């Protein structure tokens, strides 16, 4: 396993005593090299916090993250710098994640400079190579971000993430801000790059169609927890958790949704004040007394498939 996350917790303090936003509540999963692990869930479920914990933009409250067998939660400055060479991130908003005052060339050269990779000439060569990799013309180097469309900017963001030949790329909603025709271009590019460069992706999205297209293994998150986890087939064909079932049935599709549509009532509860027992119980159409009392254990359904529900 390239990435192993174990019982990871992140609580953000709120004003007042003992009040926290419980953004991530004991999440465990692992991603094998060359594969794409997908995290799917609605807004506020903690998927972006999880991404930021993994690339060490946040410090965890508890738990461990192993990368290539090493615990990276204890890394010092030096170790962190080395880790970040191997783990990069692509952000959702291609308008906010590029520095408007830096040319494409300097955006791409920056990481090379920071890590003292190559000579000046080699770096220039690398910039041209990176632009080629993501399907942009190498003459775009001297241009500024505002001269590009959203899709082109996202290509620049991907090129920047590739600059140092990382092993892991964390993609946080990389196509959500793009129009569908452009979205397809970027998804195809990501699939090609993964194969050509042997990359491992952690792919975060709220769009189930996109997640199914991209991911080998998937974790479904609700209120800071992974409620169901498995291979693509486990989640899309053999889903067992009532939340996964409702989520999938809510996806609009021609001629009605996949299977019987389950309309959940209400909104997800606040992560600052989660309900007792199973966090999904207040909205769960099948909830029983035990669900409102006790937190459900993670049940193993097959070698690859687990779900946290009392009723399974």
């Amino acid at each position: 396993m390239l990435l192993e996350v174990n019982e990871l917790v992140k609580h953000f303090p709120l004003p007042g005593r003992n009040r926290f936003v419980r953004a991530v509540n004991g999440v465990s999963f692992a991603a094998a090299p060359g594969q794409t692990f997908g995290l799917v869930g609605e807004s506020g479920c903690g998927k972006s916090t999880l991404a930021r914990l993994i690339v060490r933009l946040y410090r965890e409250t508890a738990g461990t993250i192993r990368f290539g067998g090493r615990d990276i939660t204890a890394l010092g400055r030096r170790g962190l710098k080395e880790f970040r060479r191997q783990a990069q991130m692509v952000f959702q908003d291609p308008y906010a994640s590029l520095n408007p005052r830096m040319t494409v060339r300097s955006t791409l050269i920056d990481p090379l400079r920071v890590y003292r990779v190559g000579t000046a000439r080699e770096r220039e060569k690398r910039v041209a190579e990176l632009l080629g990799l993501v399907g942009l013309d190498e003459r775009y180097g001297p241009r500024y971000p505002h001269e590009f469309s959203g899709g082109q900017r996202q290509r620049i963001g991907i090129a920047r993430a590739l600059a140092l030949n990382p092993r892991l790329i964390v993609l946080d909603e990389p196509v959500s801000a793009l129009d569908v025709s452009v979205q397809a271009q970027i998804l195809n590019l990501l699939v090609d790059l993964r194969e050509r460069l042997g990359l491992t992706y952690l792919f975060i999205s709220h769009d189930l169609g996109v997640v199914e297209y991209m991911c080998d293994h998937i974790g479904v998150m609700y209120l800071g927890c992974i409620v169901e986890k498995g291979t693509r087939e486990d989640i899309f064909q053999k889903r067992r958790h009532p939340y996964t079932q409702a989520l999938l049935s809510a996806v609009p599709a021609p001629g009605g949704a996949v299977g019987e549509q389950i309309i959940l009532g209400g909104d997800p509860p606040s992560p600052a004040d989660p309900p007792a027992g199973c966090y999904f119980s207040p909205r769960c159409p099948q909830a029983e007394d035990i669900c409102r009392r006790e937190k459900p254990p993670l049940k193993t359904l097959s070698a690859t498939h687990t779900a946290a529900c009392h009723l399974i």
Partner: protein
Amino acid sequence: MKNNAAPLLEIKDLSVSFRTESGRVSVVRDVNLTLAAGEIIGLVGESGSGKSVLSFAVMGLLPPGSGFIDSGEILFAGRNLPALSRREMSGVRGREISMIFQEPMTSLNPVYSIGAQLDEVFVNHGDRDRKANRKRSIKLLERVGIPRAAEIARSYPHQLSGGMRQRVMIAMAMALSPKLLIADEPTTALDVTIQAQILRLIEQMARENGTAVIFISHNLGVIAQLCDVVAVMYSSQIVEITGAERLYQSPAHPYTKSLLECVPQIGMSGKRLNSIEGTVPHPGDEISGCRFAPRCGEAEGRCREQAPELRRLAEGVCCRCWKR
């Protein structure tokens, strides 16, 4: 396209342009659309295709001084809306046509309570009995499925979730039982489980009141599920009008076809996604011939020279393409 009764809304050869620093930019070109009472029509297209501008034109909300209707008519229940005075138009808005927007946070006033904003709708249309207005407001909130409606009426927009705020917007839009509701990407900012609730609500409100709906979205799945008829827009034109169930089964226009193939559908993993090369032209770009030709896989000489018209292909199907 029901031809039996006189349509509720008939848009004829409508063109809209904006005045910009670099001259006039045509954002809606020769749009023809009819909508019967109780019908739900979907307007689908990517950003910049002109779908929102079209709806603003119907509402009479084009920015004064910069947005202009160059030609065409918008006939609503027999009256040509652009020809109405401002006063007459404000009588139409709210009472006969109302609108809900994408961002339920910015569409509500943060410093007034939910109840006060709902009451205002009745006040503006002449009902001044405060107690009766509040009662009606609470009833409306109940109808859109808001629990503890009396309590919510006293709260402020920031205290509600996105889904709840969108319900309030729908309540406000339905307050005076309009004949036409324009919904501009009303679920785009919402999570899928909340989106499902809101779609069901819009459908229910439309069916119960016989309200016609123009539903604008970039999401083909949402459109296909909710609407009776779909109009596909590309670069300021309608390129196809078809039945919602036909949209997926037999799309007519090459753009519609490619667009459908771009969307990863659950159950099709492993297949490579189609993508449309290039980008949407700028609305101001004058393109000789078909506006989709530069990106179209089927384009031939004629497509690049002569602009195709929207032609009727079959009952309920219109398409703007030389090759159909």
